[in-house]
Each structure stands twice: as C-alpha cells, then as structure tokens.
C-alpha cells in the first residue's frame, strides 16, 4: 500500500508500523468518576469495521511521525491521512 504522508508525500506502507484504531488517541480523563469503566473500554473495546476505519500508523523507517490514516478495510482505499499530533490537538488534547 501507499500512504500519502502529509509532509513526505506517497510512501510505501512497508516503512510504517501499524497500531490500530485511532480512538487510542482519545485516552480517557483519569480524574473522571467513571474513569475505571472508560479505561476498560479504551484498552479493550475496539470496533472492527468492514469499511472505513481510522487507524494509527507510525512512520518508523521515515520521520517518526504518527499518522491517522483513514482506510477502507474492504478495498484498502486510503481517503485521508493526517498528522496524529494535529488530530490529537483537534480533539482537545494538550499536556
């Protein structure tokens, strides 16, 4: 597969390491009252869609950026690639 890196352009997926569901960015608030439940779901419950899937890829043999790649698991079509750091910030993550 070819992943169109936002900075580097098209790169062979062999340069990347796959992690999985991009929801891993949304780590729950450990201070929340429901934190125990939320962390359990965060750590263990994943969707496994046949179709569009947002997932995390690490450009290990490249610039060491984490990317959020939107990939159709049926066709391998990649419709969107973003820097995970930007995605994290857009989700309100900070320090």
């Amino acid at each position, binding site marked *: 597969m070819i992943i169109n890196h936002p900075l580097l352009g098209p790169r062979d997926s062999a340069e990347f390491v796959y992690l999985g569901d991009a929801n891993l960015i949304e780590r729950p608030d450990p201070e929340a009252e429901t934190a125990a439940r939320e962390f359990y779901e965060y750590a263990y419950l994943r969707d496994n869609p046949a179709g569009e899937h947002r997932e995390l890829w690490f450009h290990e043999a490249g610039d060491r950026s984490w990317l959020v790649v939107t990939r159709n698991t049926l066709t391998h079509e990649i419709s969107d690639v973003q*820097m995970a750091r930007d995605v994290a910030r857009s989700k309100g993550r900070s320090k």
Partner: protein
Amino acid sequence: MHDLTPITALGGTNARVETIGAVTCSEVPDVALASVTARLGKESQTRTAVKKIIKADAPDVSRFDGGDVLAFWAGPEQWMLEAPFDSHEDIAARVKSVCKTNASVVEQTDAWARFDISGAEVLAVMELLCNANSRAMDVGACTRSSVHHLGCFVLRRAPEMFSIYGPRASAGSLLHAIITAMHTVA
C-alpha cells in the same frame, strides 16, 4: 588530548573503499553529526539558529543545504547537522551554544555510518537498494528510506553521487547490501 584510538564503523583503522564496475562505495568516518529539534513554540528561533550555523536557510522537508557545515531535514522541526569531524568533533556543544534553550541538541556522530556511492551507474545501484525514487531526487534532496531493512538517510550530493547514512552497528550489513547491488549492476 586523549589517548584512545578510534575505529571506523566497519571496525578498521582506515575507511574502506570498494570499486566494482563503474561504481565506487566509500566509507566516510570523518564526519560529525548532531540532531537539532526545535522546542515547542521555538520553531522560528531554531530555524534562525540553523541558518546561522549552516549559512543557508534551514532546509525544508526532504532537503539539505549548507556548505562545510550542512543540515538535512530529519523530521518535523528536526534537522541533522553534519560537519567535518576533525574540526567539529564537539559539534553538539557548538550547536547547543548557538541554539541555547530553543532546541534540543543531541550528539549523533557515532550513531551513523556513512557510505558515499558514486559513479556513472549509481542510479542503477540505488534502485536496487531502496524504494526511494532516486531518479527523481535532484541534488539537494534527501529522504529517509529503508535499505536492507535498515532505516537510512539518503542524500543526493551530486548527479552521480549519493550518501547513505545507516545505523552504525549495522554498517557491515549495509555494506553487504551495497556491494551486492554493485555486483548486480556491474
């Protein structure tokens, strides 16, 4: 002066040079490296510092620039600075003194082994080694690519000359891959 004698990445006292057909591969140990990564919010100050050091604009994504001391792009807001070893063994300290707290500076001199590959058939060798589109790289282009399963930096220094920086501990494996490719092309 200290009394410890250095060895090259390949374990020798002298740099190794191999010529097969129209391509030559040279081990280049006489190079000092330091990484410079901008601290959060200090990106423009870091670029200014890099510019001061290399006397050229801090290179953009997948580019390198500079003269005796040059910088190549290594990651988002991160550059690798390269200089002659003899005059710049203390490169990290010198770069840090310019960047101050605007950037994180790390000595990388011996993290890498550099091989320069040159000759008329260099493109044919490069396309056996890595998936980077070496034909499309102009002089001044650099990229990180995988050679023989090793994460490397590839720089096109001249129309018929590339540098490959590979992890120092695997210099022998990297050289094996380069030599094999040179035989295939020769």
